[in-house]
């Protein structure tokens, strides 16, 4: 948490966010539903995350204390991402550059940034629980997109919607497999879970 990695991270974050800013690359990243959902939104969150991890050292004390176990922060992440994944909001972001700007700012600052701050406060059990819920729900949303007989977004064709569905399912499967392999083989985290376990107990 010393100065230099923080500076590099802030620069990286600002560079990424500048690149994504809704003018030049916007149409490239929003032309396709799958890319919009699986590339643009996560990249925005990633920019916010980098910014958050760079600012971590400057986090006000009251925030760190009020964000108990990271619960409020992670709830904010869930609300923000759910909101922008509503088919209606994907449409609205495409139709209106002003709404796209709001999306840009809010995904970076209400999803990526709190993720960087709150995730570390969540005990290991809570993190595992969030993963175990996030992965299958991602697949379920993909399945809903695949089976929907109607177009959910006015701006995307049915075949784009199906492609987005398959992509979501593929991402879910890949994440599940990665998670499983990591737990099965055991990365060098023989101490890590014990530590976070202890941290969790202390926090509780």
């Amino acid at each position, binding site marked *: 948490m010393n100065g230099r990695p923080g500076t590099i991270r802030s620069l990286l974050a600002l560079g990424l966010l500048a690149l994504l800013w809704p003018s030049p690359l916007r149409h490239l990243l929003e032309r396709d539903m799958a890319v919009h959902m699986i590339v643009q939104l996560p990249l925005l969150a990633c920019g916010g995350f980098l910014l958050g991890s760079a600012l971590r050292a400057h986090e006000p004390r009251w925030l760190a204390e009020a964000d108990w176990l990271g619960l409020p922060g992670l709830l904010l992440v869930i609300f923000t991402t759910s909101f922008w994944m509503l088919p209606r909001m994907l449409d609205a972001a495409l139709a209106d550059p002003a709404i796209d700007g709001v999306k840009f700012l809010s995904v970076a600052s209400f999803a990526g940034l709190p993720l960087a701050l709150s995730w570390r406060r969540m005990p290991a059990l809570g993190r595992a629980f969030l993963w175990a819920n996030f992965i299958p729900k991602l697949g379920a949303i993909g*399945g809903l997109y695949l089976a929907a007989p109607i177009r959910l977004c006015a701006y995307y064709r049915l075949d784009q919607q199906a492609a987005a569905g398959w992509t979501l399912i593929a991402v879910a499967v890949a994440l599940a497999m990665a998670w*499983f392999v990591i737990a099965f083989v055991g990365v060098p985290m023989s101490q890590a879970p014990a530590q976070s376990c202890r941290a969790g107990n202390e926090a509780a």
Partner: protein
Amino acid sequence: MTMEVTAGRVALNARAAVLAYLAVSGIVLLLMMLLGLTMRLAQAQWIDVEPDFFYVVMTMHGAGMVGIAGLSGAAVMWHFVRRHVPVSTAVFLVNLVFFLIGAVLILGAGFIGGFGAGWTFLFPLPAHSGELWSANAAAAYLVGLMIIGVGFLLLHLDIARGILSVYGGLGAALGVKQAFGLAPEKGGPPPAVAASTMVLIVNILGIALGAAVLVVSLVNLYVPSFTFNALAAKNMIYFFGHVFINATIYMAVIAVYEILPVYTHRPWKANRAFYFAWVLSTAMVLTVYTHHLLMDFAMPAWALVAGQIISWLSGLPVLLVTAFGTLANVYRSGLRWNLAAALVFVGVAGWAIGVIPAIADGTIAVNSVMHNTQWVPGHFHTYLLLGMVAMMLGFTAYLTRPQPRYGLGWIGFWLYVGGGTLFVLAFLLAGSESVPRRYAVHVASWLPYDRVGSVGAALAVTGVLILIARFFAGVRTAAQAEDPA
């Protein structure tokens, strides 16, 4: 000094928590057995039950039994695995609380809302009730299951965390290296850890997929324009359902590994075959569910053929090492039978016998004529009532007063074993005569089976009532006591 006191208090709480699990399981088990008896009596035409209500009863019986099988299995697993790895009593209790909340919702959905779509909530049946139940009743059922799933997920993840903190990886905790001869058997994980690891792997995956399909069903209930591929949903539901109910026996079997050696004074040897069996069964339990879809012509043929072959093999590795291990452990050990040992022994036998009709039904040619008959309830009642429940009752006896040579406990034991056998035989015989399952009203020629089954069920309920009453009589002392060793 302070340390010891604290440790003692924590240990006491953990023990009380296990007893609370078993108390809830015991009460729900009895209530659900009464519902089962109601269905048999209705089919036997000894009592009058409206067909609509029959399906409510069937749904509640199924959900409740699967629930307490999971709950009591979790109690067995948690009780023994915490001897080896750190686990949280708080999380264990949270699961019980979630279970009770979910159970209230499910019972409300059934007995107030009239939900009767079967415990498997096959998509899109909950949304197509034919006016028998409202969308809200179906939602209460689905949300109830979801809350129970959240509790179980937390518990499993917490045990996984504990196991990882000691063994580093699930592979090591399962004994993969020992299974393939890459490490000496001696340093392998204890049986309780290997078994728990298998259960964690399959159940976390099963619950995750179950939660996904529950979400989809809920969305469909309120926004019908959002549909889902019904065959994919059926795959997910049976993956979840099969894994979850199958895992209950793999949790309960830990009681066999831990309880029998106490009375035979011989340790349960975990050898290479033992580890190999558990590794193999882990993989097969995850792939075997397709035998529930053998009648779905839209399924790809390879999946069904694989389902057939894996069905023949799936249960066998662990069953064989356990059955042989049990016989080897008991044979000439000078064991003086008590209720705990006798019940877990019956459990292994019930499990072994209960698998045989499943292997028959797992064969596509047989399945197409047998699957919708009472053969299948015959199979799973043998497996669960005389297998899983016997192990669970053995565990309750082990924790309370296992030792009586004579007395009421043994009367309960024989009523349960004898009545249970009669009850499952009635199902199996009726099934082989093609009596359909899930029919509320039976024709005259089926009645003899129904009546024999009813008598058996009544005897078994009486037996279990005695055994559970015995548990409650001893539960206060048990909370203070320590495990027999």
